[in-house]
């Protein structure tokens, strides 16, 4: 028995050690390095930052940490603007996704059971095709001599082409388009579990469909609303490809600012400070999300 227990112990340790070590080395440590570099000074050279800890003869002789990078972020209107614009664009896009996605999820949940599968498949399918190429397709639709303007001009709705590409409007369209499936899927999951007899009871008691929706369906689907909103909001805040391809010069979002600072200015400490402040911006919504999920989940049953 002792031998068996010993072997189980080694197996258990191995099963635990491999993924743990991977996550620490390739996820936790990199994040700590970002935190460290966000506190160091920039310099010209490879790598382009000063070490924080000064070693001489193997002994620590000084610590040079600075909050200058963060101070710079708060002083520079560009970054402050990017911060608020990112959160604002992500919020509005999340609401738009909710407005379009909720009726879709409800429609699928109330479709005939044999049709729900294919309808859901059609929601998931775009996700498996290239995200980049789907965003790119919008460039052809939205540009000045693009399809949308062509159609509107032809129909006589407008006489001058609308400028949509390279504006915030195009960024909203791109984000809503790309993240809509992430909103519909969790919403569908909660709506599908909803007991139809509750709605029948509401109708028997004289509630009109709209009233029944507001007092039965909507409250019971809140976990899905919260989950879907987070799945849209969090990645939208850090979005880089969509503002880069569809946004204009005045669309500054954090993800794009981070890449520009990193790649073009080669200012790694500022890029790291941007990453840390982006995480800080997301920590609150993620914590709220976890709280709500934990509180709402028992009610689902």
């Amino acid at each position, binding site marked *: 028995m002792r031998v068996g227990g010993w072997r189980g112990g080694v197996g258990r340790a191995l099963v635990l050690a491999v993924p743990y070590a991977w996550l620490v080395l390739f996820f936790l440590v990199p994040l700590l390095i970002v935190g460290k570099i966000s506190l160091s000074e920039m310099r010209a050279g490879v790598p382009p930052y000063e070490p924080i800890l000064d070693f001489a003869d193997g002994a620590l002789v000084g610590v040079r940490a600075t909050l200058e990078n963060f101070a710079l972020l708060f002083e520079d209107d560009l970054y402050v603007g990017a911060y608020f614009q990112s959160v604002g664009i992500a919020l509005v896009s999340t609401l738009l996704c909710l407005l379009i996605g909720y009726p879709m999820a409800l429609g699928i949940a109330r479709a005939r059971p044999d049709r729900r599968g294919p309808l859901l498949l059609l929601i998931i399918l775009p996700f498996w095709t*290239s995200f980049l190429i789907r965003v790119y397709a919008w460039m052809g639709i939205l540009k000045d001599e693009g399809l949308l303007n062509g159609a509107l001009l032809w129909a006589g709705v407008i006489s001058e082409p609308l400028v949509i590409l390279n504006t915030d409007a195009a960024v909203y369209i791109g984000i809503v388009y790309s993240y809509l499936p992430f909103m519909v899927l969790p919403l569908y999951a909660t709506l599908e579990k909803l007991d139809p007899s509750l709605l029948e009871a509401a109708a028997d008691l004289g509630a009109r469909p709209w009233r029944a929706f507001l007092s039965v369906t909507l409250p019971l689907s809140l976990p899905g609303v919260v989950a879907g909103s987070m799945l849209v909001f969090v990645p939208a805040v850090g979005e880089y490809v969509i503002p880069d391809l569809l946004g204009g010069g005045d669309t500054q979002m954090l993800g794009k600012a981070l890449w520009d600072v990193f790649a073009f200015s080669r200012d790694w400490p500022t890029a790291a400070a941007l990453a840390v402040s982006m995480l800080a911006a997301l920590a609150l919504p993620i914590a709220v999300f976890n709280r709500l999920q934990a509180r709402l989940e028992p009610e689902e049953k």
Partner: protein
Amino acid sequence: MRRSGGLLAALLFGYAFLYLPIGLLVAWSFNASRVVNVWGGFSTKWYGELTRNEAFLDAAWLSLKVAATSATAALALGVLAAVVLVRLGRFRGRMLFNGLVTAPLVMPEVILGLALLLLFVALEQAVGWPDGRGFATIAIAHSTMGMAYATVVVRSRLAQMDRSLEEAAMDLGARPLKVFLVITLPVIAPSLAAAWLLAFTLSLDDVVVAQFVSGPGATTLPIEVFSSVRLGVSPQINALGTLIVAVVAVLIVLAWRLMAARRGG
């Protein structure tokens, strides 16, 4: 249940919104004219140009290698992580482990990319590895991303699994490793396939993280597409997009049929 006209309209609008751009892309790819609003006649010349584009072909090959490698690593790591979370019970550091497994799901890609790049630079300084960035660094980054998704998929299947088969095997004297290989893995096999495919697709689709951790001479297909798309609309990209959509559609319909047939039979 009665379906109201409003919901039907919402569904139609939603699906049109999702599929119109994809449909247009397919149509444009066969347009002989470069201009999207002018139909210059049916042509497959952009496909011809695409097959002669060395940069795209090289990038596609690298992307496939990276995706296959990282999906396999992500699956192995994800299975281990799922076993840890579902079967190992309490251990010191479980909270941290759970946090580390799920955090990449909500981590913005720019942060993950930057963090991994800084790690690779620091490692190269400290131990001389990785010597430059390319296949290995992109594959490691994608494995970390894919692992989080693979863990979610495998974990939920493992938690639902009926354990009586495993217990029976143990009672008959099979060792834990053998039980896992002979009983557990085959039972959860569909979730393994789903997890691998998910990680594979994520890797093939990623441009942000790859852009941080790739080096000169090692561009993946999305990086190549991104840099060419930034310069404007290009018919070759329309053709490439159409090919991707076609492959995905065929695979998904096949998988769907297979699943439906299994359920029906």
